[in-house]
């Protein structure tokens, strides 16, 4: 394909990836990379660089909305960012030592894990435990968020295991050029037992900061091709905006089932491609 047509096709695919990501609650980054690799035959390293920039673009918009509403917990976000950013730097360095096939296999596996994580039921209306771990109290992490009948206080548990999961989420982010939101949510929601609303809001704040830690390394390694990144970042940004607008009216349950199945097969295909297998 040649320039104008290629860019239009890439931008179109990125808009779709952004809409999809917003509708099913995965980031646009983890969807757009396989689309670029499998659909357009782009080298996974350029795809990762472009996707990582799109992650930064979308997370800033999403995080802003939550920050205004006072739901995200800045102290938790910043403290955990110490773990995610150092993990991301380590992951981005590791990525530069891995070849295309290995990256494809790891990417596919992480995508499968993401699908599995998003299939889990989200706890709704569960009153979070009020007691916190002593270290979390020392760091003044417990907080409150605006509920329907006034502020709801919540505690923070298992800080150290949570930090470890965050470090791994950071490594994956740097290694694969993804936001790794699903893994951040796993750490905060399942391990640290934060209310789901606070988890989503805070993870949006963190995703952009984590991605920024690896993007400098991607830039230096030449993973970021401006001519590819521009249509991808703009497309995903526009798509996730549209997706957020569609969310209240779209048949989310059916879409989620259909798209998660599709993402599952895409993940298998990424693994197959990395292993050099032909997969129908």
């Amino acid at each position, binding site marked *: *394909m*040649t*320039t*104008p047509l*290629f*860019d239009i096709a890439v931008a179109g695919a990125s808009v779709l990836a952004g809409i999809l990501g917003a509708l099913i609650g995965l980031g646009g980054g983890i969807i757009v990379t396989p689309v670029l690799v499998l659909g357009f*035959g*782009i*080298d996974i*390293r*350029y795809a990762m660089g472009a996707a990582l*920039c799109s992650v*930064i*673009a979308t997370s*800033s*918009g999403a*995080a*802003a*909305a939550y*920050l*205004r509403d*006072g739901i995200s917990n*800045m*102290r938790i976000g*910043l*403290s955990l*960012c*110490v773990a995610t*950013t150092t993990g*991301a*730097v380590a992951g*981005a360095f590791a990525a530069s030592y891995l070849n*295309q096939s290995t990256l494809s296999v790891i990417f596919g596996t992480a995508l499968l894990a993401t699908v599995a994580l998003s299939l889990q039921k989200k706890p709704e209306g569960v009153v979070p435990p009020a007691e916190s771990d002593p270290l979390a109290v020392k*760091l*003044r992490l417990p907080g409150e968020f605006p509920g329907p009948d006034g502020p709801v206080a919540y505690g923070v548990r298992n800080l150290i295991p949570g930090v470890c999961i965050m470090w791994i989420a950071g490594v994956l982010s740097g290694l694969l050029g993804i936001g790794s939101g699903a893994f951040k949510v796993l750490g905060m929601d399942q391990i640290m037992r934060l209310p789901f609303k606070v988890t989503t809001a805070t993870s949006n*704040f963190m995703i*952009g*900061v984590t*991605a*920024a*830690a*690896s*993007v*400098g*390394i991607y*830039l*230096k*390694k*030449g993973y*970021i*091709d*401006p*001519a*590819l*990144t*521009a*249509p991808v*970042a*703009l497309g995903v*940004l526009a798509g996730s905006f549209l997706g957020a607008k569609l969310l209240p009216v779209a048949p989310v349950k059916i879409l989620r089932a259909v798209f998660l199945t599709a993402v599952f097969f895409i993940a298998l295909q990424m693994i197959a491609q990395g292993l050099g297998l032909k997969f129908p």
Partner: protein
Amino acid sequence: MKNFSVLLARVMVLGTLFSAAIIAFGLVWYLFAHPGQPVGDHIFSGEPKFLTNPGDMLLRAASPDAFGERRSIIMLGLFLLLLNPPLRVLLAALGYACQHDRLYTTISAIVLAVLLLSFF
């Protein structure tokens, strides 16, 4: 703190839109300059040095040479986009410093240091 969060949110949205506008402008300009070119992203070959170093990138985008190298306008927009998260952390650090919250000023400063070190 509430006002501060509102300010931070505004910086994030405006920063994203502003850099997206520059990227879009750069992309359109690039496409007008290079119609009908084959795309070389199938094989990894890295990027030229002036597109991987923030200092060189800024110089290149500002110089008249940028007319010959239109990708550097996109890169300038991307660079502004990438500055958004560090700016977010910097504002948080300043906000905590104003409240004399030594612990969180330090934590924000550590995160900011990791971000800045990774760029250079």
